[in-house]
């Protein structure tokens, strides 16, 4: 069984992916060796009382041999601003791996992501390699699609949409999805992104009868299944996003 650990992880590098998105690498062998695609960690950015709570961030990649844990995050508020100031050598308390990850049985998967939802899909894509993986990603403008560089080596095909048409097809992922599902022969969809995107994808997937896994994001206080901040309605039972998820089969979740 997996064990959750709490470690003082050493920052070993930080990289600017775009103006407000960073990749941070930690030396955290206990987590790197165990974490599965779709799981997350809970990061403490301050040893003072403000910010107080840990922040959940998806596992964007691991190198189990070197013990490296990679996270990709958007600088958005207090905690992520502090994280962006972390220097190589700093120690940051991380709890993980948390939650349960993606079901990895697919033979011909289609990954769909938008925004920072693409972060966990990196590790997922890597996990499918060398089997062919396709990804459909949506962004606002081509500036957001630095993700292309990341997925280039991991995916056989990258399908792109942008709201303004500055790269790929114009519109949301829905502009390409029906066509892809019609022709692609995918046996599973993995989607992670903003709620409206996921809801729309789930609907289309259902129409095409392709099984679909979704990765939910809810405000989390504990990440351990203890506080019920993150619960949502499942079929005949309540679900906790932090422990029963964040990854669910679309049909498991009734109310999100």
């Amino acid at each position, binding site marked *: 069984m997996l*064990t*959750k*650990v*709490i470690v003082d992880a050493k920052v070993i590098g930080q990289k600017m992916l775009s103006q407000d998105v960073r990749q941070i690498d930690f030396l955290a062998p206990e987590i790197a060796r165990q974490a599965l695609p779709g799981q997350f960690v809970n990061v*403490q950015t301050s040893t003072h*009382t*403000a*910010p*107080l*709570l*840990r922040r959940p961030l998806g596992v964007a990649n691991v190198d189990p041999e070197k013990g490296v844990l990679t996270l990709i995050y958007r600088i958005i508020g207090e905690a992520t601003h502090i994280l962006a100031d972390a220097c190589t050598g700093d120690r940051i308390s991380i*709890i993980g791996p948390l939650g349960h990850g993606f079901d990895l049985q697919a033979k011909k998967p289609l990954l769909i992501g938008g925004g920072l939802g693409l972060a966990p899909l990196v590790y997922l894509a890597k996990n499918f390699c060398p089997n062919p993986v396709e990804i459909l990603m949506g962004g606002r403008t081509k500036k957001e699609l630095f993700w292309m560089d990341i997925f280039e080596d991991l995916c056989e095909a990258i399908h792109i949409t942008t709201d303004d048409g500055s790269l790929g097809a114009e519109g949301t992922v829905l502009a390409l999805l029906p066509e892809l599902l019609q022709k692609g022969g995918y046996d599973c969809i993995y989607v992670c992104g903003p709620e409206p995107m996921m809801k729309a994808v789930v609907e289309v997937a259902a129409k095409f009868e392709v099984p679909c896994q979704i990765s939910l994001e*809810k*405000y*989390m*206080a*504990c*990440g*351990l*299944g*203890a*506080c*019920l*901040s*993150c*619960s949502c*309605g499942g079929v005949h039972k*309540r679900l906790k996003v932090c*422990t029963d998820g964040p990854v669910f089969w679309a049909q498991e979740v009734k109310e999100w």
Partner: protein
Amino acid sequence: MVKALYDNRLAVDIAGLKMKTPVTTASGTFGFGLEFQDFLDLEKVGAVTVKGTTLEPRAGNKGQRAVETPSGMLNCVGLENPGSDYFIEHTLPELKKIDVPVIVNIAGSTPEEYGELAKKLDIEGVHAIEINISCPNVKHGGIAFGTCPESAAEVVRAVKANTGKPVITKLSPNVTDIVEMALAAQEAGTDALSLINTLIGMKIDIDRRKPVLGNVMGGLSGPAVRPVAVRMVYQVAQKVNVPIIGMGGIMNAEDAIEFFLAGASAVAVGTANFCDPRLAETICQGMLSYLDRHEFKNIQEIIGLALPK
């Protein structure tokens, strides 16, 4: 062995509830304890206080349920729990395998409901009942039991009449006079008091121009509220003769000691469990160092030392 480890210096007896260490966990912040087993040895926690339990299962509030605030957090989980039957059938047997006292926090909408719940839980494996009186009293227009001395007393009597376990009444801080509430609970027969529950607060999302929490208002907890909590324990300890479990913003051993000096006989770690899931166990080391440094024989010796002579 725990005994050897702590030398008995931290052992306390809260109205018959024997705890190896004076640290329990605040209800709702520690799940059923089992969630924390990767991080600590539950047998080294003084007692596990579980999430608020109601007669029937409850789904809790819709929408966002938690949000951080300066040195604190708001929550409106709203008593989501699988109900008492599920707890007794599924959770309690797991807890029984562990050598740690279990305090069950109970909530209801009428005094009768509290009584019925107390009776159901008057079983082996349950070591004490903690009454959460910060719940709306459906008979009195939804005003919380915990803000009216008579309603609070009614609940305490209903519970006492239905259980042989030590009964702990958990006070709400959202009152003008906390001492009045404490005395009402004491007169109604409570064996101990715990305080404080959360302060009522809210946060507004200025971009959406709506309350952040699904339930509009929520309970404020964490270090932000500690000064209020210490003050209330200090006030209550001077007027009651039942033991007090102090809580509210405890982040480390030093914070815990503040509560003992203010008159608490035990403490509970709440929100801090989210920051450091090991705290309910590790905090004891710091308390022992404090006892050593100041040459106290045991934790008993420091209870109430900051109270007026």
